[in-house]
């Protein structure tokens, strides 16, 4: 599908993409276009910026008595539970198969000495133009397994998974089925997870369909 950049409908599509209200078919078509169009990519970034800025306009309000203690109690209670859950999730996912991507220079910065997280599972979001379209789970420590889970709708049906290491080496982990919605894909990393700088999913024509770390704010909330 070709897109007329002077068509007011394209402005509406860009806005609905940013607001997350495009229907599946339109989203798939626009995702394919966005993967190769710098003009739309720039516009999307500017729109996301404007939309996010509106949250800064809200006035402060004093929360009810006891709010702070309730938040801190939930955080305190969440710490051990979460570790168990993530680990279970990783192993159950490893039994499945398929998709996606992502990355992160942050893996390299993960606190190795932290007793909470040493030898446990990290999760990193996969991004495509400000939308989180999946998650990568990887295990720190000696294991080199990761599982990529994605839910992107696009007409791209296969992608290569590329790992970039902290020494800037790129390793192609091979191609896998993609683009039809939810899929998961286990793979062995070429290096330990803490040495992974980025993971990318690239279409067979060379278009980057997902990376992690592109836009860390906001969509966390949907995880």
């Amino acid at each position, binding site marked *: 599908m070709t897109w007329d950049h002077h068509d007011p409908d394209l402005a509406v599509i860009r806005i609905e993409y940013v607001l997350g209200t495009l229907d599946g078919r339109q989203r798939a078509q626009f995702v394919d276009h966005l993967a190769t169009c710098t003009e739309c990519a720039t516009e999307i970034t500017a*729109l996301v910026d404007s939309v996010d800025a509106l949250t*800064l*306009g809200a006035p402060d309000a004093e929360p009810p008595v006891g709010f702070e203690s*309730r938040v801190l109690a939930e*955080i305190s209670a969440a710490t051990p539970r979460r570790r168990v859950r993530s680990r279970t999730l990783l192993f159950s996912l490893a039994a499945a198969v398929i998709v996606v991507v992502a990355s992160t220079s942050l893996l390299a910065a993960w606190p190795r000495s932290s007793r909470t997280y040493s030898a446990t599972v990290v999760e990193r979001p996969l991004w495509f133009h400000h939308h989180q379209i999946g998650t990568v789970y990887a295990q720190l420590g000696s294991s080199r397994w990761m599982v990529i889970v994605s839910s992107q709708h696009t007409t791209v049906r296969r992608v290569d998974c590329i790992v970039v290491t902290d020494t800037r080496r790129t390793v192609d982990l091979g191609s896998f089925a993609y683009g039809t919605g939810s899929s998961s894909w286990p793979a062995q990393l070429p290096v330990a997870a803490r040495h992974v700088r980025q993971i990318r999913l690239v279409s067979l024509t060379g278009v980057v369909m997902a990376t992690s770390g592109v836009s860390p704010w906001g969509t966390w909330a949907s995880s």
Partner: protein
Amino acid sequence: MNQIDDSAAPSLSDEALVAGMAERSDAATVAFVRRYQRRVYGLARVIVNDPGTAEEIAQEALVKAWRHASTFDSRRATVERWVLTITRNVAIDTLRRRRATPRDPTEFLDLAAASSDTPFEERVEHGDTRATIQAALLKLPEEQRRAVVLATLHGRTAAEIADVEGIPLGTSKTRIRNGLMKLRADPLLERIPR
């Protein structure tokens, strides 16, 4: 694990607090929650009508920020934008999931305008972020302003806005588009820290 000193945490930068939370420092977590609870609860209150629901949203947002602290990237956003965007997304999810009652969008600006004794123009002049956002919104015609707040803060689709406002779908889409395009081009918003 607690390398951040209790007494030092409140004076640390936002970014340092988030880095401390990522390492699960209790002192950093407490300082972060104290610093941001009014901002987060304030945003939740302008999106949903019920104070109890707003409290649940604010709590969930702060816990999410803690949980995902290690993935915060200061090259992409300020801590304030990051945590408020998380809050907005939790609020939108809650509105959709529970069919909770959203707050009337015009109250957003009334609340905001009433939140300070200093005259509005003076606050914009002095680079007050909140006043600057409000000023940019106030430049829009009222119907566009309502549509933009409903679409962005409340997460309403064009069809839902058409329904709520009693207007045709095409009109709803036009209002959202025109309003957002004006905001996107407004030089006022370029003054806001990213």
